[in-house]
């Protein structure tokens, strides 16, 4: 018992240090967002505010466009996720459980597509969207991401592990291939869906690159894009509300992850991608 305790201390210390290192900016952000204005620019460093100051939050939520940015972000990530699942799940099912000529080549292409960073295709997509005139719309934020090689890959790995008998039984029960996808395969892939949803939502909620390129209309700004406007407006001297806004923008993801943590890890493990 003593032996095992001692052997666990070193890894524990390292983990705590690592966690502290990663968490420090967040803790600092949280701390600043709760400090009164005069306390933020003192020369001494104190992690805890002398008094909890909620006015930063009130200011961020009422005097700025943060609620609109949050709403835009929500619409965008929901739209992206909806279309991603709509397309990725049937594709993955076909790649995993159907036999057709060129299946392996097709799957090879999906894996190859995993290696192409979005930034490579961003300029052609931008030019194309400019041609058809949908820049500066919500569609410009959603459409580039509705096909997802990562999603297809993740779901395919999951479906490939499901027994073929299950799908044969469903065919015998009179389900069409489409019905099998949505009534049998998709509900069973819930852990994989959760993992994928977290990846997708996190990536697109936090994305600054594409919203910065594709939209200039402030009423379409997503949270990270919005915070930029915010900083410009306030010229950096209103740090308290800025930090409060950052907390508000970060919080939904952290909360969602904590709630779905177990499903998330299950999905990754089941998807053969042990994290």
């Amino acid at each position, binding site marked *: 018992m003593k032996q095992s305790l001692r052997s666990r201390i070193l890894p524990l210390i390292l983990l705590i240090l690592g966690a502290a290192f990663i968490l420090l900016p967040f803790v600092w952000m949280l701390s600043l967002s709760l400090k009164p204005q005069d306390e933020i620019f003192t020369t001494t460093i104190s992690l805890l505010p002398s008094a909890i100051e909620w006015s930063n939050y009130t200011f961020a939520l009422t005097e700025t466009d943060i609620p609109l940015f949050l709403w835009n972000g929500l619409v965008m990530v929901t739209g992206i996720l909806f279309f991603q699942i709509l397309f990725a799940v049937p594709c993955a099912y076909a790649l995993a459980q159907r036999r057709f000529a060129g299946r392996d080549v097709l799957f090879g292409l999906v894996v190859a597509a995993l290696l192409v960073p979005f930034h490579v295709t961003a300029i052609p997509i931008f030019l194309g969207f400019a041609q058809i005139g949908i820049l500066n719309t919500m569609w410009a934020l959603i459409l580039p991401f509705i096909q997802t090689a990562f999603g297809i890959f993740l779901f395919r790995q999951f479906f490939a592990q499901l027994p073929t008998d299950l799908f044969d*039984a*469903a065919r015998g*029960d009179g389900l069409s291939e489409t019905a099998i996808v949505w009534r*049998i395969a998709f509900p*069973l892939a819930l852990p994989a869906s959760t993992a994928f949803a977290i990846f997708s939502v996190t990536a697109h909620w936090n994305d600054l690159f594409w919203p910065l390129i594709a939209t200039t209309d402030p009423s379409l700004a997503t949270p990270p894009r919005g915070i930029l406007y915010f900083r410009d407006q306030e010229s950096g001297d209103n740090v308290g509300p800025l930090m409060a806004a950052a907390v508000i923008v970060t919080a939904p993801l952290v909360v969602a992850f904590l709630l779905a943590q177990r499903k998330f890890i299950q999905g990754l493990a089941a998807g053969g991608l042990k994290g």
Partner: protein
Amino acid sequence: MATILELRNVTRSFDSKVVLDDVSITIEQGSFTALLGASGCGKSTSLRIMAGLDRPTSGEVLLGGSDVSEQTAYERNVAMVFQSYALYPHLTVAQNIALPLTMRHLTPVRRLPLVGAVMPGTGKARQTIMDKVHEAAEMLGLDQLLNSKPGQLSGGQKQRVALGRALVRDPSLFLLDEPLSNLDARLRVRMRSEISALHRKTGKAFVYVTHDQTEAMAMADQIVVMIGGKVAQSGPPRELYEHPANRAVAAFVGHNAINFLEPGDGIDMGESVVGLRPEDLAPSESGALLARLESAEYLGSEIVLSLRGAKGAEIRAIAPGDFAVPATGSEIRLGYAPEKLHLFDADTGFRRERAA
């Protein structure tokens, strides 16, 4: 009896590997047919072709007299029970059993949540479905489990749910792919009689794939023995046991492995190999066959004797339970009735009828 299903000269090959080679099988209305064979003999492929889950490379599949080669499993209305049960893990027992009916009786729009529920007639259709589900569940003793998920069930219960799902569809034919092989020995015997009872109750034709000759003998009225992708012999169990068409069938059928005696092993019938079942061979004062005792297994009702023949051939015989086993190594005389001998051609292995 009318023929319900017929495979006619069916060949199936995967790439260059021939899995089924010119297989013809006839299933009579209301019969219980067992496809018996070792793993890899093509029995499951035959079943999948009957079900419509696989297509023959050449040959015909006739259901009720018409060619159904191009029809799907659903269009054929045959029910298949899988070795792995293949229950939908995310649905309850009731939903599992109801699914085939839901697909048949409710249009796609009616199946939608919310929208379907408010359409007139959906409630009535759902009620009909649930009545049928309850009926099937009662028949199989599943009434208490209707709201459980498959993960909470034991192997035997899962098997019953799989049977229930097949049953509610009122199919023209039941196809069962090694349904008992995932159960423990005791449960297997019980499910065996339950499946037989189900067969009698429904009166439908059952096709049952198994590698266990005991199951086949106990349940079937027709056994099709498959070896290496071909039908080696088909017929009633008694026919297969008493008149095996070749050595391989004789070796496969029968609880105790049959003895094969080459010429010179003690029973000389010309050039033929002699097949003699252990249960037809017993110690006897006046027996014609002399063999040396190697070991004896006492099983209560009987004693299984392992012996060596004159030329070293392994011979097994069965003595009654009260037989006084002599010391190992002693010579024993064994007797048999001449009509119990099976003769096989030494080269081809085919059965030879004795010139009486």
